[in-house]
């Protein structure tokens, strides 16, 4: 009922459309489609992504555009609704005829629009961390993936706190596949899963879940909660004094829960992020300053905002390397030598030609009792190696499939 309700609400909601500043010269602009959730359950984590794209676009246009052509943004609000993604993806590719689309927050919405990008043989950037495994020549992924986030985070947590792990995850493809990664990495490191629970999206009451966790007595809890309703878990677990360390690939770096909830409900949360605004490097500080100059009311600059910002520059690099062409084949050819890189606020990001995923600097963010963030460690230039290792090679063929640890490409 709730799904229908929000779906129908979305259907009638206002369409927000934003056209970027048109440059004075006569050259044809490069059209960049932006499909992100600016309303609904995911808006909190994704409005910053749109702002990241707008910031990069303004900077690039002020500096003369991409290969002399200005960027024109074609933005639609996808309202945290998968069917809106399909509708607007057809619209930007068919009617607006954009050169590239930046689209998607939840993995469900990405899988909803991906067949449409395949059908029109378009190019889409997915600027979000996710459960990994998309091997598709029409997609470039700038977000972090499990081998970057979990292979770093879980061994650290198991060494620091112990080997008994409890996972609570959002009940859809992202949570299910991420939980499978957690299971595998915990087993590889000699740990034990003492419990696992999948929470339907939109659930906001966690008393029983909290008690199930206390009954299982884990050393730490892996929280893979998505959407604003589910983040109520932290306040409720804090109030019930669960007091267990937590580990996450999505929280803090995406939904900035440490800013939204009163301390100490997120005490001892550890998250592997490729960017958060607290990162204390000159590049990061300069980025935060630029961001706030353009969007003074931005509540938080999360990793997906930085991914989206960097993605515009990576796309610029691709077009300029391809001699100004925006044809998919020409753009993909620029990836071949693996040297398509950009010095992002986090550090260098490079696109891997085999999987079309991006290498990242991964920071371990630790939320302290007062909700300040410290970074006990970081890992430089972590490659998105898993897809290549299991046999995805987009330079050879394009299966347009998503693989998981239990669903690997066939050998032939």
């Amino acid at each position: 009922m709730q799904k229908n309700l929000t779906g129908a609400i979305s259907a009638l909601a206002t369409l927000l459309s934003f056209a970027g500043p048109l440059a004075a010269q006569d050259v044809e602009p490069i059209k960049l489609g932006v499909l992100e959730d600016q309303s609904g359950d995911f808006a909190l984590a994704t409005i910053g992504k749109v702002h990241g794209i707008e910031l990069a676009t303004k900077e690039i246009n002020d500096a003369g555009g991409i290969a002399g052509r200005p960027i024109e943004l074609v933005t639609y609000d996808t309202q945290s609704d998968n069917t809106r993604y399909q509708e607007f993806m057809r619209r930007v590719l068919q009617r607006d005829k954009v050169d590239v689309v930046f689209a998607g927050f939840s993995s469900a919405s990405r899988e909803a629009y991906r067949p449409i990008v395949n059908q029109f043989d378009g190019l889409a950037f997915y600027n979000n961390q996710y459960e990994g495994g998309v091997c598709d020549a029409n997609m470039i992924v700038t977000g972090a993936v499990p081998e970057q986030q979990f292979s770093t985070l879980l061994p650290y947590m198991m060494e620091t706190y112990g080997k008994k792990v409890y996972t609570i995850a959002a009940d859809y493809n992202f949570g299910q596949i991420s939980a499978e990664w957690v299971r595998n990495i915990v087993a590889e490191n000699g740990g034990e899963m003492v419990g696992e629970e999948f929470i339907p999206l939109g659930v906001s009451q966690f008393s029983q879940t909290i008690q199930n966790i206390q009954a299982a007595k884990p050393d730490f809890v892996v929280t893979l909660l998505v959407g604003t309703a589910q983040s109520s878990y932290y306040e409720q677990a804090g109030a019930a004094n669960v007091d267990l360390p937590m580990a996450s690939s999505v929280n803090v770096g995406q939904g900035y829960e440490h800013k939204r909830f009163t301390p100490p409900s997120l005490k001892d949360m550890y998250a592997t992020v490729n960017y958060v605004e607290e990162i204390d490097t000159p590049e990061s500080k300069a980025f935060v300053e630029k961001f706030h100059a353009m969007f003074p009311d931005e509540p938080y600059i999360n990793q997906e905002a930085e991914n989206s910002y960097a993605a515009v520059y990576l796309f610029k690099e691709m077009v300029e390397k391809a001699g100004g062409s925006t044809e998919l084949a020409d753009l993909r050819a620029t990836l071949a030598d693996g040297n398509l890189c950009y010095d992002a606020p986090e550090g260098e990001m490079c696109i891997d030609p085999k999987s079309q995923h991006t290498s990242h600097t991964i920071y371990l963010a630790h939320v302290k009792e007062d909700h300040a963030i410290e970074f006990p460690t970081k890992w430089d230039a972590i490659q998105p190696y898993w897809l290549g290792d299991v046999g995805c090679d987009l330079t050879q063929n394009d299966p347009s499939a998503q693989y998981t640890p239990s669903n690997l490409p066939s050998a032939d």
Partner: protein
Amino acid sequence: MEFLYSLFSFLYQFGDAFAFLVLSACGLAVIFGMMGVINLAHGEFILCGAYVSTSVTHMGVPLPLAILAGSVAAGIAGMIVEVAVIRPLYKRPLDTIVATWGISMIVTQGTLIVLGTTMAGSGTPFGSFSIGNYSYSVYRVVLMIMALVTLAALWLMFTKTRFGILARATIQVPHVAEALGVNTNLVYSMTFGLGAALAGLAGGLYAPTMTLVPTMGSSFMVEAFVTVVVGGADIFLGTAPAAVVLGFIKATLTSWQGQLAGQIGMLIAVIIVIRILPRGISGKILKERA
């Protein structure tokens, strides 16, 4: 001893589910159950209560007063909505769906545009206590007590006060009430306002335990409608027993198989109940009495 610990933990979980169902459904039971207005903006009255009470808490007002302020604000908003939008539509119940749905969308998106994506929470007060292996939040026990207090207060209001009697008379046979000199328009707005204030109360009470976002009302909607539909038109013979039954099913299944099973079990129970008792639990009880 172990058995007592488990018993307490079950009672706590049951009470928690019961409190959530009662508090989210009370306002809707008045507006939808009694008045017959299908109010899809119920969640937005909850949102109003939550946002107002949290803002008032941030100004340094103690929590109970802040919750009261949230409830009053939602009640006033409800009376305004009744006068401006609902009043011409009492004879067109299907149109009220569209109208309240529109209000719901305008409020959700308006809140997002004006107040941004989120509001900082006020934090759950009162700390925690431990029994056996488990630790519990004190505030959630307060919520259970508040659910019972709310039911008792409503019972007193509808049976013992002049307003309650006028409200029941007006809703039962409006033209006779009017002929006897009751200002039915005023009674309708007061009753609608009461329903909205109860929704605001739920919002204010749950605000410290939840994430405050413009869409937060929607997470109460399923439970609220389901409880009212199962309960039928009467708050005491309907909503309260419905919350007991659904809370029991939800708590049992959630502790056995997790949140997903709890949700599925609750919805299956609703399908069964409305198949057997089309007018809800209270419809059945009242029919037998008559």
